[in-house]
């Protein structure tokens, strides 16, 4: 449980799966760093839209938004009429919204049958 990553000069505690332990520890640099571990080479504008929304939602509800909410809100923020597709989200985050996007956004991993 004493695993950590080093970003810049800072040591950040992470769990066994590399999710950061403390919400306050998160920074954009860490997001960039974690992105690379999840198969995202470059954080684009679209990636940030998703990550920022996840963080906003988590601040309010202490959980990641439900998948459909995430798809719809992402679509809206990207200036589209419709929700983005699940497939689009997987193209952005190859390891998926729950594992990849949440990790990069500094959220704990969703638990249960998901």
């Amino acid at each position: 449980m004493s695993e950590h990553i080093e970003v810049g000069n800072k040591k950040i505690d992470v769990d066994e799966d590399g999710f950061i332990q403390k919400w306050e520890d998160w920074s954009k640099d860490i997001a960039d760093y974690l992105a690379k571990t999840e198969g995202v080479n470059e954080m684009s504008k679209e990636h940030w839209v998703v990550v920022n929304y996840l963080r906003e939602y988590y601040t309010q509800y202490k959980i990641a938004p439900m998948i459909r909410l995430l798809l719809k809100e992402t679509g809206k923020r990207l200036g589209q009429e419709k929700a983005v597709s699940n497939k689009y989200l997987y193209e952005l985050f190859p390891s998926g919204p729950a594992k990849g996007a949440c990790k990069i956004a500094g959220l704990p991993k969703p638990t249960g049958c998901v």
Partner: protein
Amino acid sequence: MKEKIDAPILTGSITVPKIEENASRNQRCHHASEDHMVRLGFPGTKPVDWNKKALKRMRELLKRNRSLRLYLDICVRCGSCADKCHYFLGTGDPKNIPVARQELLRKVYKRYFTIEGKILGGLTNAEDLTEEVLDEWYTYFHQCSQCRRCSVFCPYGIDTAEISMAAREIMDSIGVGQKYCNEVLGKVYDIGNNLGMSGPALRNTLDFFEEDIKETTGVDVKFPLDVKGAEILLVSPSADFFASPHVDSLVGYAKVFHKAGISWTFSSYASEFANFGMFIGSYSIMKRVATRILDEARRLKVKRIVVGECGHAWRVGYSFWNTLIGPFDFVDTRYPVPQHICEFTLDLIKRGAIRLDKSANDEFTVTYHDSCNVARATRMGNKDGGQFEIPRALIREACNKFVEMPKNVNREKTFCCGGGGGLLTEELMDLRVKGTLPKAQALKNLMESRQVNLMVMICAVCKAHFTGVLPHYGIPMETVGGIHQLIGRAIVL
């Protein structure tokens, strides 16, 4: 840090591998932290005299569970189960042979609890409980999805699930717990569901569905929460509020209630049907988790309890609730408690209370995956085999093209998806992918020979697992769905 997932190539047929010792030895799940353990009333860390404490717990369990003692006593190692476990078929690791998995506990039982083992020792396989044995326990009792398939083929009905549950219970009692299950159970205690979704988050989620359905259909389908005096309390696995394709079945449930015109409600306190207490073999935790639902049914003064698409919890509900938390004399006794959403919906269809337009699902050729706990540990309706026929009847009502899985992977012979029994966790991904091999072979076959493009099921674990695993086999995740997803699309609002 991440290991590459090494998915076998699908050939469309299921074959028995040569044994390969320790093939899945390094597939080990994360240990629960001290906090997770203490929250559930277990020791936070492993005590110095863990060996003595483990044997003491084992002695208690032998008294508490006839199944445990009997099954440790009477196995003749005939090997009828040897080629039946999906984890063995997928990995070739001989410790994933059901009898060999049992043997891990049996050899310790023999050593400390039987005359045979004390006198004949190694000739009977008897062995001391050492660190090494404990480590094997931790590894291989977390490579059993407690799906009971081996039991079907055992001449004495020996159920490896009973043994692996006991082993996990013993390990928890000495502070050696599994993170995935124990963290989740802590969230149920603290927040009310596996996800850790609070009441406000749940309401926000349900609001989204109401708006979304209104936008797409123009109909005001409500998703009531915490409504006192509602006719029905609906309890579904919390994944239905969160993940894909689970949410599509949730929409299906709501549309069914809407058209049936029966008042219903979710509860933010009892917002979880899943009960991981079963996975870790703890009756007291299982009871505590189930009691939340009972308490809420009382508080909300509902007349019926209907439950959503969840496999292991259907076992807990169908087979255990009455004993654990019954009797349910305060609800309407004309209806079973709990009533499965499939029983509920099929009844409405038969009475003409709701109408389905099959053509809405014409883009799909559908097959059905029997989830292990539903198939081998429960029933639905009043007729024998209702757990097979009722879901199938619903599928036939909801679509035009339905194809059965082949007999050797269907009904009571179904294979576990590969992620059941508390193994639905990322660090076991390689094992889970391999455990899916038998079912994936059958599916692949149907996709090619019968153009199947949707496999529906009524279990949140199966849905989540297949969605994550099938892409490793080149099968798109959209192939996975729920029965009420079909119903939700076909129902005439």
